[in-house]
């Protein structure tokens, strides 16, 4: 995608580094809890707080989660990897170093396919995935002259997922983050909750003339929503283009995204190029994985989004777009399949993606908190299939189900909303209406076809909305034509 500048077309080159909290009970190298929202410094062991003499011991489950994530990203699993110390000073980094992986990460090259809105597939390369410790939290706004430090998060396992600089638009960046998030949630290796900080994104942005050489990049740190990722990248690319077109040059900088202003700004800390002095952590030996163990993990993976989407297209004959929407989240896909079992998949798909998602979005609920469970929605669809309800009536019933939590059958019985399909009854209703409309009947017969809708409306009202629309139309036309 090109951006039109004053001097011509520009292209953005973007690489994303996603930091994903590993779903585990305990931290990467200590036995303290990873639960979110605890009182400050209550989930900190002496190891996390880097007291003298403390030593790291790696959590096997975190290793497993990293390998599963790598497999989900279609990446190479490195059977031998090494933990390195990344040395720098900051208040929320108690040891003065972070245990990370530099030269030999646990996962190597991979790729994912993006679901772009226009349906075209776009492949983005993954450079690597490695395990590392998260830092604690610094609170700068609690006291006029002090920063408060909470180490609850210090030592929580992170997977850092680095993309190749293949991304070329803010849109692609958003789709990339969504896809990675979706895969990790499918695997259960990260809950992807960006508000709680389970998943954050560093965006590396540079611009160039198409075909030209790479420009200097800036890094926008800790962006915590998909929307902000897209906004930040768009703003930054345009900012850089603006600078370059004025004849200026881009300084390699670390920047932050200010959501309130919708703009990026440089971080105010001392400008120094970091020399992290990476070296292998002497408290840890190289991590050696067993090939069979990796194979077993691979065999045990759940069906991933792309495979699920393909299967939905193939077996349920859904459109790629609908299949993509349903396969985006594992819980959505599972809900859909429960509803679609033994039923018309197209009908199921429409009800889930349009009606159900509409309600969920309006009420900001996830499918896990859906007021209408999958079985209940399926029951409603059965009533359409067997003719009890028209599509229109079903919508009314659905609305009532959402409000009351009652089942479809119960509501139909309560409100007497059964569809009227008895030709006699419909004819009688039609006759009653037409008897009062001689003038309009004459107009219709004279050529005003639009009045059909008017008559349909009247009969529907008279039948309390229960007349079968198709039959009503047919019978009405017959009667009108004399």
């Amino acid at each position, binding site marked *: 995608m090109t951006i039109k500048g004053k001097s011509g077309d520009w292209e953005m080159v973007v690489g994303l580094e996603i930091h994903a909290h590993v779903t585990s009970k305990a931290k990467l190298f200590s036995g303290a809890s990873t639960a979110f929202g605890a009182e400050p410094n209550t989930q900190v062991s*002496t190891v996390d*707080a*880097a*007291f*003298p*003499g*403390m*030593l*790291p*011991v*790696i959590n096997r489950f975190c290793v497993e989660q990293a390998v599963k994530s790598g497999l989900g990203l279609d990446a190479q699993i490195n059977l031998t990897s090494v933990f390195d*110390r990344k*040395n720098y*000073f*900051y*208040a929320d980094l*108690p*040891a*003065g*170093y972070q245990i990370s992986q530099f030269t030999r990460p646990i996962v190597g090259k991979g790729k994912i396919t993006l679901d772009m809105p226009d349906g075209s597939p776009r492949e983005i390369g993954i450079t690597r995935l490695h395990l590392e410790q998260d830092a604690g939290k610094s609170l700068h706004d609690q006291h006029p002259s002090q*920063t408060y*430090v909470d180490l609850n998060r210090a030592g929580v396992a992170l997977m850092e997922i680095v993309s190749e600089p293949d991304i070329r638009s803010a849109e692609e960046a958003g789709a990339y983050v969504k896809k990675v998030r979706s895969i990790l949630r499918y695997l259960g290796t990260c809950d992807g909750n960006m508000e709680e900080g389970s998943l954050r994104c560093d965006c590396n942005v540079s611009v160039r003339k198409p075909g030209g050489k790479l420009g200097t990049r800036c890094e926008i740190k800790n962006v915590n929503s998909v929307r902000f990722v897209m906004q930040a990248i768009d703003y930054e690319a345009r900012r850089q283009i603006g600078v370059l077109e004025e004849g200026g040059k881009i300084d390699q900088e670390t920047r932050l995204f200010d959501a309130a202003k919708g703009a990026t700004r440089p971080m105010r800390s*001392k400008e120094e190029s970091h*020399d992290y*002095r*990476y*070296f292998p952590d*002497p*408290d*840890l*030996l190289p991590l050696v994985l067993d090939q069979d163990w990796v194979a077993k993990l691979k065999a045990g993976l759940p069906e991933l989004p792309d495979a699920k989407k393909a299967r939905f297209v193939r077996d349920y004959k859904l459109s790629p777009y609908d299949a993509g929407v349903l396969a985006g989240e594992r819980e959505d896909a599972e809900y859909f399949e429960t509803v679609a079992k033994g039923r018309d998949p197209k009908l199921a798909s429409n009800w889930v993606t349009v009606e159900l998602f509409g309600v969920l979005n309006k009420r900001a609920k996830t499918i896990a908190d859906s007021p209408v469970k999958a079985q209940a929605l399926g029951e409603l669809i059965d009533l359409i299939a067997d003719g009890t309800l028209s599509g229109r009536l079903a919508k009314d019933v659905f609305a009532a189900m959402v409000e009351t939590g009652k089942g479809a059958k119960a509501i139909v019985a309560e409100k007497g909303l059964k569809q009227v399909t008895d030709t006699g009854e419909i004819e009688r209703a039609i006759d009653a209406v037409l008897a009062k409309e001689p003038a309009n009947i004459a107009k219709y017969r004279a050529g005003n076809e639009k009045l059909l809708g008017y008559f349909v409306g009247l009969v529907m009202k008279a039948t309390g909305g229960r007349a079968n629309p198709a039959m009503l139309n047919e019978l009405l036309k017959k009667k009108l034509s004399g």
Partner: protein
Amino acid sequence: MSALTALSLAQARDGLKRKDFTARELSLAYIKAVEDARPLNAFLKETPERALAMAKESDARIEKGRALPLDGVPIAVKDLFCTEGVETTAGSKILKGFVPPYESTVTANLWRAGACMLGKTNLDEFAMGSANVTSAYGHVESPWRRPGDNRPLVPGGSSGGSAASVAARAALSAIGTDTGGSIRQPAGFCGIVGLKPTYGRCSRWGIVAFASSLDQAGPMTRDVRDAAIMLKAMAGHDPRDSTSADLKVPDFEQAVGQSVKGLKIGIPKEYRIDGMPKEIEALWQRGIDWLKSAGATTVEISLPMTRYALATYYIIAPAEASSNLARYDGVRFGLRVPGESLDEMYENTRGAGFGAEVRRRILIGTYVLSAGYYDAYYLKAQKVRALIARDFEQAFKQCDAILTPTAPSAAFAIGEKMDDPISMYLNDVFTVPVNLAGLPGISVPAGLSGEGLPLGLQVIGRAFDEEMVLRVGSAIESAAKFDAKPQFVAGKA
């Protein structure tokens, strides 16, 4: 020195069992000895109440006939081991006032075996030194003096306080740590036994880290049998230390006194360094003769990389230390010197809190790891280290144990060798290769220098073959019959 403090650990253990005396009496004798030894500045903290409380429990168990292996044994602990509720300083200003809320695994093992804590001993700051002259709390004096010369001598380092306390009979035994020779060299200077086990034999959990790939805890004792008894209690797998060996702990005492008949003892030709004092050479030869008389044969071996060991060590150890000591930043424990900003607070705290030698090593370490230099220094050193380890592997195909001198000289006066850090570093020329290869090594007092000061001989073994090291060490001990006493002995009128 009272009759009680004259006993070795093994003798005291037996005496307690026979009820010749109580644990309380033994602790009281040592508590007094610790007070007497104050002029040496070997102890940073005395813990007499704790020792007596522990002795009381020991007596209760001994009474019931349920004595633990070290019940009633008064022990001095190098102030590098974190002891719960007892200030632990690592000999540094930056940890002044730090009271650990946890106990190191090694000391926990000792207390679980019934030992009694006399106090925390002085050391070179953060274990960096070989003379115990870099402590922020003053240097330690050796209980040895050159006869007719009043100048105080160094006890060696970094475990100088532990060595001096055992030599002066102010502790029945002590524990230290050894990263480049810090147990063996002071043991050599003070005429006692010092054992550095194989890397991974003892847990490092709770020991203030200096150089993670080199540090090991070990006993410092009157004789080889005592060292074996101590090591058995100290050692063992610790799941909290990822470098801790998951191996059964043998009954090391069984190895003491075993015949060395038929054993092959390797004599590394590269250890015959330029300018080696004749008396060290002579002592080494005496050691060879003793072992031959006891039925062993000697074979010349080659350890070609020996001359590069010190340089290798002085890249790797400072590099690891520069990272391990980054946590001393004034935020969570120890000294904080205020600053206008966070960085200023760090700089002020660390500038004031670290002594000159520690600072020197952190700067070297930071430099050798920095961008552009990592390959040339650190990576290179790790490769040479692999070659040094390979040297030993090859050598051990031809012999069962290796015999060398412990140090290139006897103890020197406090204040000597201070102009040039490198001259101080050379004290460790014979001990450093053993740490680089992760092997076990013991220093056994073998004779006196021309000036009447102790000289030690070092026995090196294969990985996890401390039994061989103790066996050969005890043969040296039997033949040497070293019974010289230091000029200062606690309790002597």
